[in-house]
């Protein structure tokens, strides 16, 4: 605990309470206090004592870290606390009955040949083994199969990304051997499950001989760039988000105007505050002729997250955050809410499913790559 407090700079805390007052969950009305957890850590209280004090409530969105005047890494603290609580055989009751965690653990166990590429269409050029670019799909195929109740199309973003890579002359590797990155197991504290996934995945990409690893998922990206780091060998491919990969290559794509669209951009917490990628997705959108980007009042480092990043918390407060966020998006007058993480889409779409206020808060949601890929279509048909 002392080590954790030191590593996350918790000792520097001077009790100002900025964390608690910026926490989106607290603002939505929850009885929850990051500051109390920091204090508990400094006092050396065991993680198990925090379990009943909202250990799994934190969205890990890093809003508080961004505001903390002394740079306490509260999100890192929560991660560490969850890991040590997990060792004491405690885990949260995960939303969706834990179905997604089970799916991840089944993948972690391995021993079967997944059938995860059924969505690949003939017009997409990919290779299962060799290529310069390794395109990391993430688990969008599982999400689309699971969230059938509310019109979730995260695979469209995956396909669009591959289409764009093809347009740049790349035939990316899309591997049937890919497994979940383990992000969500890690964030509920299941280090063991996470590590077996991590080892498999790092090995898979290292052996592929690719030069760049590109993904469309903000969470996968964070996991690869930060959490996999200790496992990553020296000559490992560069790890990029699709928006980073594409942002300086948009001229080569020869995009033409498709239709006039006002778009607003939802910064995924993993991409924004966790990794500091704010500009590239915006540059990418702005490169599409006909797309006008309008910002929500809270954007960039101040962006409100989708309130469900780690599949470990979903409650009325999360819903309230989502509804507020969607209202903000609607108020910009945008036709489409663009994001760069499949989970933002899933959670915000879930909120739109509300039978009472659904109409008021609904807005089309798409992945950034989809908008860009659409501007290719026009060129093809000319």
């Amino acid at each position, binding site marked *: 605990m002392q080590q954790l407090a030191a590593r996350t700079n918790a000792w520097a805390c001077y009790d100002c309470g900025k964390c608690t007052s910026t926490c989106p969950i607290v603002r939505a009305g929850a009885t929850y206090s990051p500051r109390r957890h920091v204090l508990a850590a400094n006092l050396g209280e065991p993680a198990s004592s925090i379990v009943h004090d909202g250990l799994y409530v934190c969205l890990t969105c890093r809003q508080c870290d961004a505001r903390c005047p002394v740079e306490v890494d509260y999100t890192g603290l929560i991660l560490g606390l969850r890991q040590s609580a997990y060792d004491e055989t405690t885990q949260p009751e995960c939303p969706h*009955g834990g*179905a997604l965690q089970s799916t991840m653990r089944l993948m972690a166990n391995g021993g079967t040949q997944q059938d995860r590429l059924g969505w690949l269409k003939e017009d997409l050029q990919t290779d299962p083994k060799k290529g310069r670019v390794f395109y990391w799909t993430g688990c969008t195929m599982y999400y689309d199969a699971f969230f059938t109740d509310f019109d979730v199309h995260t695979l469209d973003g995956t396909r669009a990304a591959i289409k764009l890579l093809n347009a740049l002359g790349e035939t990316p590797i899309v591997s049937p051997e890919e497994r979940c990155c383990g992000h969500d197991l890690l964030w509920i504290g299941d280090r*063991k499950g996470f590590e077996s996934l991590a080892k498999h995945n790092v090995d898979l990409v290292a052996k592929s001989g690719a030069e760049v690893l590109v993904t469309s998922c903000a969470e996968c990206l964070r996991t690869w760039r930060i959490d996999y780091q200790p496992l990553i060998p020296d000559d490992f491919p560069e790890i990029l988000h699709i928006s980073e990969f594409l942002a300086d290559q948009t001229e080569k794509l020869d995009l033409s105007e498709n239709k006039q669209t006002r778009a607003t951009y939802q910064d995924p917490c993993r991409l924004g505050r966790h990794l500091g990628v704010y500009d590239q997705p915006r540059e990418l959108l702005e490169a599409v002729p006909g797309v006008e980007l309008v910002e929500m009042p809270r954007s960039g480092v101040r962006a409100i997250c989708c309130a469900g990043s780690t599949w*470990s918390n979903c409650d009325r407060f999360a819903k309230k955050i989502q509804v507020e966020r969607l209202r903000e998006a609607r108020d910009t007058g945008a036709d489409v809410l663009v994001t760069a993480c499949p989970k933002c889409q899933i959670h915000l779409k879930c909120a739109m499913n509300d039978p009472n206020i659904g109409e008021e808060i609904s807005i089309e949601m798409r992945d950034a790559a989809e908008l860009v890929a659409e501007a290719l279509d026009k060129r093809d048909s000319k």
Partner: protein
Amino acid sequence: MATKDKNSWDPEIVVFACNWCSYAGADTAGVSRIQHQPHFRMIRVMCSGRIQPAFVLRAFERGADGVLVSGCHIGECHYIFGNERAIEQFEKTMSIVKMLGIEEQRLRLEWISSAEGARFAEVINEFTEQIRELGPSPFGRKRSPAKAGKGVAG
């Protein structure tokens, strides 16, 4: 547990049964002293509509070799349309199970009424045979890596 000899290996099957029909059907089989394969554990739920993907996936995760989902015949659900929900949930579960590379024969949906004791025995025997043919689940041999934890309300 699992040994090399296929015939001496007994599968572990999880059966989800609704309170009003299939569970009662199993009871009927028992009361009528119908012999059937014993290698399953039954989990009673109030209605098959309750059986969400998480239940089945958790069973596989914890090493089940086969999972049987059962409920009242369509039109006979105690809660009118619970088993129609069950079909939706089952289809969703099946697509994930297949994606994970688990043989689809390891998962089955059956309607068994409370009077159908003989049919219950038949389904169990047949399913057990089918699982025996497939052999142990790839997740069964090692057992699940994760210990079941005490649930804690988030």
